[in-house]
């Protein structure tokens, strides 16, 4: 029932992100598939697929990041902000139930959003080009979702940490920007490669570029990071005094 409540509270946001992401993905798939160098000049079909991938990853990751931020802010921290946490915690359920019911529902909504966007985009590509260049493309759901899940889980945790949905969202946004910029700065200054959630997105080249490796380790690593945040949220929430 808590999952139902979460869905009812967040469905407006979820539908907005879904429309944004799907329409962007479809639009750019169509554009990529109809680029002039696509046909008749002997260029390999991988070119437009690569354009599509790169565009979808860049734009998609921004929308997915916003979706992750928005959905994460609807979590447990929002209960503190609305003043409903006392009502919630006087229902006979373990506190971890509320943490995980909320997190799983949000993660499922995020996954469905990403999957629909990638699949609609792929279907557009198939429709315009008549024959797809690479059946690996739908696997791009994985990096996009993992990236979104990291942002979502971090925001979910931050809202519980500061006991406020909006403040948690702001903090999470700051951390994400820092986490995206810091590896770039460190790389430029000291030639040291720090792990970044962008590693997962870059790995999506596996879908379109022959010989590219799928970043299994980075994907698994960031999956674990995404799972660590709800665990940390549970730890906090079980000790929270209302």
């Amino acid at each position, binding site marked *: *029932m808590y999952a139902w409540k979460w869905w009812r509270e967040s469905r407006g946001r979820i539908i907005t992100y879904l429309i944004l992401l799907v329409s962007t993905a479809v639009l750019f798939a169509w554009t990529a598939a109809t680029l002039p160098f696509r046909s008749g000049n002997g260029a390999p079909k991988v070119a437009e697929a690569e354009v599509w991938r790169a565009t979808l990853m860049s734009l998609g990751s921004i929308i997915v990041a916003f979706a992750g931020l928005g959905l994460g802010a609807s979590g447990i921290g929002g209960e503190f902000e*609305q003043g409903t946490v006392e*009502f919630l915690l006087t*229902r*006979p359920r373990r506190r971890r139930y509320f943490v995980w019911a909320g997190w799983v529902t949000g993660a499922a909504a995020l996954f469905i959003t990403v999957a629909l966007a990638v699949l609609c985009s792929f279907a557009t590509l198939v429709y315009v080009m008549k024959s797809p260049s690479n059946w690996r493309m739908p696997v791009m759901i994985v990096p996009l979702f993992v990236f979104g899940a990291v942002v979502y889980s971090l925001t979910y945790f931050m809202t519980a940490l500061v006991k406020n949905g909006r403040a948690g969202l702001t903090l999470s946004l700051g951390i994400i920007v820092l986490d995206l910029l810091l590896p770039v700065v460190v790389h430029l200054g000291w030639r040291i490669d720090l792990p970044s959630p962008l590693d997962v997105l870059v790995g999506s080249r596996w879908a379109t570029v022959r010989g590219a490796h799928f970043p299994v380790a980075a994907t698994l690593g960031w999956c674990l990071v995404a799972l660590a945040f709800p665990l940390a949220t549970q730890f906090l929430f079980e000790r929270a*005094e*209302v």
Partner: protein
Amino acid sequence: MNDMAITTDGLVKHYPQVRAVDGLTLRVPRGSVYGFLGRNGAGKTTTIKLLLGLTRPTAGSARVLELDPRRDRVAILERTGYVSENKRLYEWMTAAELLCFTRSFYRTWSHQAAEKYIRRLEIPMRQPFKKLSLGNRTKVYLLLALAQRAELLILDEPTSGLDPVIMDELLHVLAEDHLGEGGTVFLSSHQLSEVEQIADWVGIIEQGKLLLEARLEDIKNDFRLITAAGEGLQPFGPPQVVSAVQAGAFWKYVVSRDAEGFAARLRQQGATVTDVSPLNLRQIFLELTRKEDPCTPGNGGEKAVAVLSHI
């Protein structure tokens, strides 16, 4: 089975700046309506939060339905209905949706009882919670607690915003249904008249400490206002004197027990006792919790508190 629904022993909750609960020892008998009274900030709500496991005690212990709130929180909540002071619920949900959401948590939920309370308390079920008046919000909260068919109801200011008709209806509901089935009500309220109407036990708390805990009937039988006139009367008398105030030629004493014995002593001192009258709960509460020293300068209010602990 223990005959106490709630017991606390030396319960303490300290926040960095405040001693919200300071060595509280309560005994709430099963099947009773226990009026838990105190001024704003006296520690009532913190006590309730400690009983429900919403916050952890600094020291001391509590048992609710023979369970420890620190370890058995879920088991306590399965058997306890709670109306919180703040009456905050999901603003976008209608009362019907709130009912649907809440009943999923309880095995003891009674659909028939819910229907009955909706009718009796005249609850608008189709309006979003945010559009409800304070009184209707309170009614929805009460409905959610009552329909659980809980053994114990913990009500923190349950009647705020209710009109007198609905308040009366609620008191009937509590008396007929809940108490009729052997339930216990722990009622924290500022509405002393409603507590007096329904409670059979009373506990008065001030600055986190229990000033008084007794049967309401005993309190009303024992507390008396004695008015006396005479030369050389002492402002402070035997231990049962709660307050002594001089008003012109008269002294007004509030005593917590043995009023006749105290009046006899005043007469022995040459005083004329003009009146010995009973006090209602409101008057007793005011005498016990008034901030300024009710007695003569130099005789602190603490003295009265110390006296009362022997009742």
